Structures are given as C-alpha cells and as structure tokens.
C-alpha cells in the first residue's frame, strides 16, 4: 500500500466502505429468507444496541460524563414513538385503567417522523436535566442521572392517561426491520464519525481531558458538555424507539437500571471513546446475552441436577465485566478506531510471515 499517496488511499478507503456497506445491505436483505426469525431478531437487536451503545459512548467515552440515565432517555423515545404510530382505534382498546387523554389519542405520525420525534423528545429532556446536573462531575453525575432515569420510569408508571401506566403499550407496528435498524446505525455512525473527526471532535476530547486548559483556549466547556450530552440523549431516544418497534411491546419495567447496565457493558467492553468499539461491543454482548441463556435452564451433568436459576446470566456477566476492568481496562478497541489501512497493513504483515 506504500505506493499509494494519501488522496488515493482516501479514495480506496471510501470505495471499500461503500462496497462493504452494500454487501452488508444485500446480506441483511436476504437474511430473513434464509435464517430463522429468532436469529434475525438477535441480528436486529445488535444494530439497536450498537446505536444505544454509540450514543452512550458519545456521552461517557468521548464527553467524559459518567451517565447512568440512558434507560430513562430510551424510555422517553420508546413511548413517544409508540404513541405516535399506534392507531387511535388500538389506543381506545388499550387504555383500561384510566381513560386516555384525547390529545394523546389523536397524535399520529409516520414511522420515520416518530423516530425523529423520539430523538427530539429525549434530547429535550437531556437539555433540561443536563443544565443543573452537568455542574456536577464524576460519580455525582452518575448518581444524579440514575435518579433522573428512575423518576422518568415512575412518571411513566403513574401518568396513566398518557402512558397506560404499568400495563405498557402493546401491538406497536413492527417497523424496525433489519434494513431499517442497520440503516439508522449507518446514518448514526456516519454522523458521529464526521463529528468526532472535525475540529469540534478535538474540542470535545479536549474538554474531557482537561477542562481548565480547554477554558483557557476560549472554549465554553459547559456548553460543549451540554451539547454532547444532548446529542447522546437524541441517540438514546432513537434507539429506544427502535427497540419498542422491534419488540412491539413496551412497559416501564423494560427501562430499569439493568438496561443501562448492559449498555454500559457494551461501551466499556468495546472501548471507551471508540465508535467502532461500540459496534464490536454490541455484537459481543448481544450475542453472549442470548447464548448465555442456557445457564438459566435446568442443567443435568451426569447425576448432578442443577435447577434453572433466573438471572444467572447477569451474574456471569458481572464477573466478565470485572474481568475486563481488571485485565483490559481500555476495552477491546481502546480509544482506537477501525480503519481499512489498519486492517490491510495487518493482513499484509500476516501474509509476509
């Protein structure tokens, strides 16, 4: 590759990216005809988790703000999108605890618009919470955001006329097809990559690394932090909306702290501050969470009979997370990003051996 100049390399990398994206799109388009529905769903979940991981990584990895409130923003996105796309007739049947507010019943929007509305609603709450809370730092910020997500969950449980309370929403049209989820992921990856490669990205990392020095360089660090937090919340809202559309049922219990916790695992395992790391983390964690389900079933080893223990896989996951933090703190990708040059150079080295 040494024969190519930088312009040619850029062209080559763009061509490779477009080519592989097209190949992936064809695979995803064919997948439902060749693979069973359960696996398709997991592949779909990978994309949604990647979107959520990426948005949390924007806040935590790139912005350096330890946030435990992501499930709250997901919940906002999921409910906004679901309310917008469920038809009034369906809503009429669903609200049985309390009558539905008329304006909620008549709110309607096409799916794509509902996704954007979900993001905007989450971002709005993001701004609202970040202005008082981002004056805190480190662990305090984590605790405050955790409290916020609990408040959201409890509000959703109790605002029955709007959210149907603990019964949740059922029969959400399954708009989150494979191509839709991966399309959203691609758009988000493109935007975040371009953002973090621009000078603004440098500034975001500068605010994370040394706030005092960043201020001295004329950067309004508080504004940058609020902005990055809000962008992350937008991603969280969109991800939550897609999640609702995939599962077709949402209720407040879906958005507990464990949801944030698995996202945190994706981000930490993939590498804090690495965009491609979040995608790798999403693939790993999502597949393992499914694969590890066998430990919750009754197991018979010889004459030993172990009854199924619900929640066992989360125990195993916690152990894995501790192992990652002890042995490889920077995660799989560290702060690095995947690049074609990196892959090809490695392939070449392997070939030379």
């Amino acid at each position, binding site marked *: 590759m040494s024969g190519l100049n930088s312009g040619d390399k850029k062209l080559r990398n763009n061509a490779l990216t477009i080519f592989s994206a097209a190949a992936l799109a064809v695979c995803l388009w064919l997948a439902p005809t060749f693979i069973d529905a359960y696996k398709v769903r997991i592949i779909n979940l990978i994309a949604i988790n990647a979107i959520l991981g990426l948005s949390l990584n924007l806040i935590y990895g790139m912005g350096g703000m330890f946030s435990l409130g992501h499930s709250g923003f997901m919940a906002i996105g999921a409910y906004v999108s679901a309310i917008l796309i469920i038809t009034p007739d369906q809503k009429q049947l669903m609200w049985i605890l309390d009558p539905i507010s008329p304006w909620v019943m008549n709110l309607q929007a096409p799916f794509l618009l509902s996704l954007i509305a979900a993001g905007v609603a989450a971002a709005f709450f993001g701004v609202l919470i970040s202005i008082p809370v981002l004056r805190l730092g480190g662990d305090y910020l984590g605790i405050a955001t955790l409290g916020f997500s609990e408040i959201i969950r409890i509000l959703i449980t109790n605002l029955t006329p709007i959210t149907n309370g603990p019964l949740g929403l059922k029969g959400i049209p399954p708009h989150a097809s494979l191509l839709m989820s991966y399309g959203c992921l691609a758009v988000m990856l493109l*935007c975040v990559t371009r953002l973090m490669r621009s*000078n603004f990205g440098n500034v975001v990392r500068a605010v994370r*690394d*040394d706030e005092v020095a960043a201020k*001295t*360089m004329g950067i309004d660090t508080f504004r940058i932090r609020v902005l990055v937090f809000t962008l992350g919340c937008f991603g969280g809202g969109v991800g939550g909306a897609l999640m609702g559309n995939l599962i077709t049922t949402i209720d407040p219990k879906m958005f507990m702290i464990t949801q944030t916790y698995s996202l945190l695992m994706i981000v930490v395992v993939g590498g804090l501050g690495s965009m491609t790391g979040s995608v790798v983390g999403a693939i790993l964690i999502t597949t393992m969470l499914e694969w590890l389900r066998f430990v919750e079933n009754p197991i018979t080893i010889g004459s030993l009979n172990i009854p199924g223990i619900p929640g066992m896989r989360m125990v195993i996951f916690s152990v894995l997370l501790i192992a990652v933090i002890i042995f490889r703190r920077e995660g799989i990708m560290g702060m690095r990003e995947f690049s074609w040059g990196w892959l090809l150079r490695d392939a070449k080295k392997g070939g030379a051996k």
Partner: protein
Amino acid sequence: MSNENDFALRLDGVTIQFGGLVAVNDLTMNVPRKGIIGLIGPNGAGKTSAFNVITGFYKPNKGYVEFRGRDGAVSRITGLPPHRVCQAGLARTFQNIRLFGSETAIQNVMIGSYVRQRGRWWMNLVPFTFPGASREEEEIRANALALLERLGLGAYAETPASSLPYGAQRRLEIARALATKPEFLLLDEPAAGMNPQESAELLKFIRSLRDEFDLSILLIEHDMKVVMGVCEYIWVLDQGTLIADGSPEDIRMNPKVVEAYLGKEAAHA
C-alpha cells in the same frame, strides 16, 4: 511606565483573599503595548494568583483589570469567565504544562483555533452540505501545521502531545496559545525545567514571537538569566505586595529585591 495611556493591560488595586490569607494585596501595574514585561518574586509571592485573576479563574475581592486591544478599545475583563477572556484576546500557558495529552500536536493547535472558528458543529454532519465549513476545517489544519513548523515542531505534528520531549511540550503549549490569535500572551514560567542552552534559545524565541505576532507579553519566571535577558521592565512581588518595579538593571541593584530573594544578611553584605 512612562506613557500611562499606551497600556495593553492594566491592573488597578487588585486584591485577592483566600479566607484570611491575602494572596495578592492592592496590586497596580501596567503592561505597555508590545512590551515584554516580567513578573517575578519568591515562591508564594502571588504571581500565579495574579495570572489567574487576569485570565478569569479567580475573581478579585477588590480592584479591576482592564485590557486594551489593538483597535484601542478598552474593556474591563474582571469577572469574565476564562473562555471570554480568551475570546477578548488574552492567551496563557501554564506553569505545569497542561496539554491535551491524548491528542496529537496538530490537534492541540487546532483546538486552540476553535475559538475563532466560524463554522458550527452541525455543518460537518452531512458530507457536501456546507462546503464553506469544510474549507475552513482544511484551512485550520493547514494553519496549525504552519504554526507548528514555525515553532520547529513540524516533525511532531502527528505525535500524541504526551509523548513529546519536554522542551517541545513547552513550545507546543505556546503554539496552542498562539492559535487562539491573541493580542496578549501570558507565559507562566516558560523556562522551568530547561537547561541554560535551551533557555537562551527561549529568550530569542520570545522576542521573535513578540515581533512576528505583534504581541504584548507578560511572563512569570524564576530563572533570573531569562528575566534579565528578555524583559524590558520588571515588577517584583513579595508576599502578595508589590515591592519594586523598574528596568532589569534597577531591579538587580534594588536591596529590597535581594532581601526578598536571599534574606536580610545577603542584602546587607
């Protein structure tokens, strides 16, 4: 100074107290335009505190700081937050180098130029939508590279700042400050940790900076060779109070200064 009206920066009666401790006591001083002025004093004299007042990190209990730009407009910068002070045209370096360690040298300089960047963050989200913003990004990169080369750091452009040699880190911090397009530069112990040869080079470098970038410079320094070699005028602080000011020769002879630095016996010896 001789001409009271030709100042670039003026402190008037600045006092800072931390609880019962008076860090800076009623400090009044002037920095003329295009001057290279030294602020010296023993450890704990309040030099860095004075810097922190000027750059907006501390709010003085009493007094004010005025800044006059190249256009002649005088503005009061006391009470402004640090980023606004930088926007007004004052840039600084730190005693203990504070680079963005995980960023490359060129990224450090580009971060400095963000304060003058017109393009907004969302202009770079979608390719080809805002050609002006992309062009500006390229200009910023080119200017950053030129600035690095001017300061002899061209070879380090793509090296993470934390792995640069010590002297290069000092220069990179100055390059980053220059990228904010300042009119006034505050250097906090630029020669700290440098050997005699390096500080001699620094002397020449500081002078050339002033002429090339049309700057007024205020520097804190412990290295007397550097102070006497480069400064046109010197202010001496001891325990927060101004004890002397004058040309380098006056300061060298001033018994009060010798006493503050070396003790009473040395002053009378």
